[in-house]
């Protein structure tokens, strides 16, 4: 009995550990195995296909589009949110009147679901009725904004909506980091004659390195997982021009009954996330071992 009581802490942890072990690690293993089978509509583990499913994914024109879009979206989404987030944080840090109200405005999109964001921007970007019409009525007659109907441009609509939604989060990260910089460093830099922009460029921005790392990791993994926004904003279209790895996976698994191919694409997504996350988690936990 006493022995059992000594184990109480570990025992209380057990239900959660079992759940996570099964539904995270177990399921990853199952999906990996599935990706090597001939599963189509239902999972089956008796007929093997080997790595041909991965070749099928990589040779598929839709995956090619998905990877190209992922590159465009990933780079512009991370770059855009970092740029706007940093700019707003630095400007907000200049003893601004009504800072609280402005912060609230920049950050509220983070409370919305990507579905709401997608629905709202789809409406705003509707040619003839949305922003296009507004600018024309305000006097800019030749204004055109019909990207959402153009195969080549629609992915940039996804970028705009994504940046709109997440920039406030990066702003909050950077603002917290700015306010956490050791004042002595700033004082020392001032003594050395740094001021204004050069102060920011040479002293403050380098001091924000950890915040940059966090922002890139968080936004990067969101970019890989991105699904809802595309579904609500463009439905993957026009055609499949805004396909992302996530929509590819869903389409093949649930609509086309190509479960093994879908599983292979899911494994590819996991690999992308791991490349980003594992080094980060490793360094976080090592440093955290105080």
């Amino acid at each position, binding site marked *: 009995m006493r022995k059992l009581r000594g184990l109480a802490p570990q025992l209380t942890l057990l239900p959660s550990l079992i759940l996570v072990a099964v539904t995270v690690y177990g399921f990853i293993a199952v999906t990996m195995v599935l990706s090597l089978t001939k599963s189509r509509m239902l999972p089956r583990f008796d007929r093997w296909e080997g790595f041909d499913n991965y070749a099928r994914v990589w040779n598929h024109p839709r995956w090619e589009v998905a990877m190209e879009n992922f590159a465009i979206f990933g780079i512009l989404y991370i770059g855009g949110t970092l740029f706007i987030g940093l700019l707003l944080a630095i400007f907000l840090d200049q003893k*601004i009147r009504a800072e609280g109200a402005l912060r609230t405005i920049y950050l509220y999109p*983070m409370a919305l*679901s990507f*579905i709401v964001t997608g629905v709202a921007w789809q409406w*705003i970007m509707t040619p003839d009725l949305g922003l296009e019409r507004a600018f024309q009525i305000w006097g800019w007659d030749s204004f055109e904004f019909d990207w959402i109907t153009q195969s080549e441009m629609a992915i940039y609509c996804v970028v705009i909506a994504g940046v709109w939604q997440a920039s406030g989060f990066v702003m909050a990260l950077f603002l917290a980091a700015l306010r956490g910089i050791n004042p002595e460093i700033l004082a020392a830099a001032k003594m050395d004659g740094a001021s204004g922009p050069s102060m920011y460029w040479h002293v403050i921005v380098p001091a924000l390195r950890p915040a940059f790392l966090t922002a890139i990791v968080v936004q990067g993994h969101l970019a890989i997982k991105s699904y809802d926004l595309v579904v609500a904003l463009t439905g993957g279209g026009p055609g499949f021009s805004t396909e992302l790895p996530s929509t590819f*996976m869903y389409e093949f698994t649930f609509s086309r009954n190509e*479960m093994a191919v879908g599983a292979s694409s899911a494994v590819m*997504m996991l690999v992308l996330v791991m490349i980003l996350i594992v080094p980060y*988690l490793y360094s976080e936990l090592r440093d955290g071992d105080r």
Partner: protein
Amino acid sequence: MATARNRASFERGFVYLVLLLSAAFFLMPLIAMIFTSLKSMPEITGAAGFENNTILTPPKEPSVAAWGAAWSSACIAVACEGLRSYFWNSVLMVVFAVAISVMLGAVNGYVLSKWRFRGDNIVFGMLLFGCFIPFQIVLIPMARLLGILDIAGTIPGLVFVHVCYGIPFTTLFFRNFYVTIPDELVKAARIDGAGFWSIFFLILLPISTPIFVVAIIWQFTGVWNDFLFGASFAGADARPLMVALNNLVNTSTGTKTYNIDMAGAMIAALPTMLVYIVGGRYFVRGLTSGAVKG
């Protein structure tokens, strides 16, 4: 001297200009949504009498008709009963998913910070990894498991899924919070004979309100806003609001009714917006503490 002052005030003006233009950019979609939801379709399409209407013009004849339609009569797939029942599906799902995942996270965080054992950091790291996985990797086996447990397509099934993938986050929040509470507090209580549970309930719980608020807001927002799990696992009767909203807007046939679409989007957005406005401070803390060390 005068030019230096001019330059300083010019810079200041520039900073304010950028901040205000950004505020306009962030507010514009919300304003467009609200205005559109209060207009009639002829006004939206700029029919006779409304030639100068834009998405950012305030409604000439404001009406909540579209809100009523979105709530109780708009057609989603074959049923024309609005978003109402899906709204309550989401409420039910959120209440249980948040309560269970937050309670489990609190106990997990307590064990991982105050009852350290060998390998606890590895356990924590393995839990943390669950925060980042792309959920596409678990969709197929989860569908199977829900079938085996006989909760496929149901709200309890969705609650189960959200609890599984909420635990890593809630554990992270509570663990990082309890780490900052001095160990001496726990040690002193142990010397006084307090056991595992009494230390948790009598010493830690009373001071945990802030982190409970953070975890509840985080989970509430995440579960309420979820689309992927709802779309993958919910049967017709258990569909959450976000899935229904997407169906309302993107799969309806015939002319698009933008006013009803926007009213629906506002209905879906209001609960989390409200939480954000009331508990903004805790919302931001959740966002950044999930990401920032310590």
